[in-house]
């Protein structure tokens, strides 16, 4: 039996591609500003069966967000449906059904009603619609994870702009241009937490 899940842990099930990069940054910046700790499957070190590690990560988090806005067929290269996100959502749903008090999952989408077509078995589950914009992601995260004291969407956008402006220096320091690299992700999350303390000084999560 796994350990009790982290009450701040959020497993982020998102596509790792260039087109999604703005929303990806918005997700972890927004979650950090709500006092939550985002986690990605890219954090998982190599070795062992990847699927087992993903299940462990899901089990270690109290929440998960599954962004199904880019499950479309990739028409640029060989047309292949993107199955990873629905697969990980399916694993999460199974875990939640078996442990209903341990986990809550959320589906995010960019378009209203598309989920009814792409995954009709989820009918009855209303997704959070972010309109494909960072503002929309912040708005929906605030709706999904309300807390007594939380930043406004404009405050979140300011931190988003600052974190975004630090990308190049973080890429250079880590010797990669891959936004989804584990090292880049960790540094960007630290930055987001630290900047949140500008608006909420008592939290003081310094770098």
């Amino acid at each position, binding site marked *: 039996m796994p350990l009790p899940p982290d*009450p*701040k842990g959020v497993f982020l099930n998102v596509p790792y591609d260039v087109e999604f990069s*703005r929303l990806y940054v918005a997700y972890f910046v927004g979650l950090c500003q*709500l*006092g*939550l*700790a985002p*986690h990605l499957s890219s954090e998982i070190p190599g070795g062992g069966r990847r699927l087992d590690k993903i299940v462990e990560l899901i089990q270690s988090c*109290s*929440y998960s967000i599954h962004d199904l806005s880019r499950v479309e067929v990739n028409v640029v290269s060989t047309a292949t449906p993107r199955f990873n996100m629905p697969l990980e959502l399916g694993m999460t749903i199974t875990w939640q059904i078996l442990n209903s008090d341990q986990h*809550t*999952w*959320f589906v995010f989408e960019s378009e209203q009603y598309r989920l009814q077509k792409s995954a009709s078995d989820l009918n*009855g*589950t*209303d*997704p*959070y619609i972010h309109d494909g914009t960072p503002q929309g992601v912040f708005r929906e995260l605030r*709706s*999904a*994870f*309300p*807390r007594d004291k939380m930043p406004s969407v404009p405050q979140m*956008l*300011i931190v*988003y*702009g*600052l974190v*975004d*402006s*630090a990308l190049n*220096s973080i890429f250079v*320091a880590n010797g990669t241009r891959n936004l989804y690299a584990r*090292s880049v*992700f*960790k*540094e960007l*999350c*630290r*930055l987001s*937490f*630290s*900047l949140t303390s*500008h608006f*909420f000084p*008592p*939290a*003081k*999560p*310094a*770098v």
Partner: protein
Amino acid sequence: MPRPVAHITAPWPTQEEMERYYPVSEARKKALQVLVDEFKAKLSSREEASVTLIEPEKRRKRASAA
């Protein structure tokens, strides 16, 4: 059917938790702290902060034009 909502009551992450969640080297901690200090100075000016809001889009346009 209403959407799920998670009312967050957990306290804000502490420094120790952040070290556990996102460990980095001492050298990178220092470098990131420099960035944080610089950004916080920027945020102290509302005017600077409003300029920051449009920077990401400008930067992307510049990058895609290059």
